[in-house]
């Protein structure tokens, strides 16, 4: 399988706080990667370093062999890599369709073409029938789906999802997992950041565990579940 994303020795500091220390891993085409770790492990920081919202103080990020370290987020998105936000950032005073349309306009030169594509994406995430509802009036779960739709509409090759299941009920999480499986089947590579391990186990092919800014484990879900370091990080030493 082709390597899409390569992260090499990425470190990030905020003042005296070492948020990431020498994190390296690769993501291959059409994989689903789970990125987990306790609170403050540096998961969101890592996503921000990859998508251009932060410039890492050390290390490099490669996308399809090209270095993208320090590029602006819009540039990286145009290349085919984007993320959703941990806190919902839907365009609240716009309709569902307009939200997704803004994403779709990136790669569709004609507006009616973009509208058509946006409607398709809305259907994929299960928001059909709500096209004209204002995003601010949606339930939190629907706003999450909307953000997912908006990101998918930019036609990325890798999508980084930051705690997309946060605040959802178990039923909603299960629904979301089905949607994610579906879009992965269509060829989209996913990196899913999760705080809760249970949410990610059924879908991820490989899991990377961060703890205090360092990568402490990497492997298939079963192996991670039994890894002592991981158990220690989550539950503390006996």
């Amino acid at each position, binding site marked *: 399988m082709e390597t899409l994303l390569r992260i090499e020795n990425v470190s990030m500091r905020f003042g005296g706080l070492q948020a990431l220390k020498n994190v390296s891993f690769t993501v291959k085409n059409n994989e689903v990667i789970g990125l987990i770790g306790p609170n403050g492990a540096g998961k969101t920081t890592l996503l921000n370093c990859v*998508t*251009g*919202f932060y410039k890492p103080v050390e290390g490099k990020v490669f996308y399809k062999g090209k270095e993208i370290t320090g590029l*602006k*987020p*819009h*540039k990286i*998105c*145009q290349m085919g890599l*984007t*993320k*959703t*936000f941990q806190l919902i*950032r*839907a*365009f*609240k*005073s*716009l309709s569902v369709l*307009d939200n997704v*349309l*803004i*994403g779709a*306009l*990136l790669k569709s030169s004609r*507006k009616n073409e973009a509208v058509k594509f946006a409607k398709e994406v809305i259907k994929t995430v299960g928001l059909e029938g709500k096209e004209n509802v204002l995003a601010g009036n949606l339930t939190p779960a629907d706003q999450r789906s909307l953000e997912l739709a*908006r*990101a998918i*509409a*930019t036609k990325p090759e890798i999508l980084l999802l930051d705690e997309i299941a946060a605040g959802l009920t178990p039923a909603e999480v299960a629904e979301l997992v089905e949607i994610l499986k579906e879009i992965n089947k269509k060829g989209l590579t996913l990196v899913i950041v999760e705080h809760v391990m249970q949410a990610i186990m059924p879908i991820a092919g490989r899991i990377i565990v961060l703890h205090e800014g360092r990568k402490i484990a990497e492997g298939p879900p079963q192996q991670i579940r039994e890894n002592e370091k991981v158990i220690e990080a989550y539950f503390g030493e006996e």
Partner: protein
Amino acid sequence: MNVRLEKSAINKLIILIILSLLPLYPSPYFRRTLFLVLYFAYLGVAWDLLGGYTGQGSFVHAAFVGLGAYTSALLFIWWRVTPYISMFIGALVSALFAGLIGYLCFRFGLRGHFFFLASIAFLVAMRYSFTNWDLVGGATGLIIPLESHVPWFYLQFESKLPYCYLMLIFLFAEILLAEKIVKSKLGYYFVAIREDELASESLGINTLRYKLISFVISAAFTSLAGTLYAFFVGYIAPETVLSDILTVQIVIVAILGGAGTIYGSLIGAFIMVPLMEYTRAFLGARSGLDLIVLGSLIILICVLYPHGLIKLIGKIYHKLPRIRGDH
């Protein structure tokens, strides 16, 4: 789709017909007021593209009125360049100036209140530079000399009537263009930036570039009205076309009518300009009283209709008995 398109075209036609009948009322004072209404509506629409749609509240806009007015006045005084041409040179100057200050502000991430403050600084700096610059007439300003030879070619008319129609044509052309922009990719990106800049970046929108585009378009539009105004009054000075009061009036028009709505500025101008004129006519003898009354009325309207008067019109419109079968 077609029905809606047709309806909006009919609405536009009705507005256009009403507006083009108004200047026929043969009173110079009425026509002068009407010109100002159309002028401020035009300026409000231009401001709205940047302030209402892109969400970058600017206080510098009087500077573009001034640049348009001064460029055309100087080119006329020096070389008798017709304002029909010089207005576009003025628009170019304004666009370049907007590009420069926009880059300086947006490059370093100034937004919200801070962009607002920086834009005030640019306007004030420009006003005092012009006040102390003899080449452009200094504090006394410039008088546009009357041209006896083919005056219409130099935008000089005895009656106020042609000015009203000219301003009306510009206003309508601007509204049509603004609508086109707002419905295009450009407009969607402007609104996305207003709603959330970080989210916009994550969707591949070069927020710096689109903010600059919005600023430049808004400035160029604004500048054209500056030229028309200069030839309408025949006299310009830093105090009239580069004043902070002028910016305040533009912002009031746009926000009073409803920011981010285009047509709101038309309503805003029809409320603000007559209020301004009549409070001055009836209360102007006591210095400052007219401004106190005007200010209070504006505060009242803003409190009652925080989303702009266009919402009020919408409410009335929806309460009207349905005579057409298109709903």
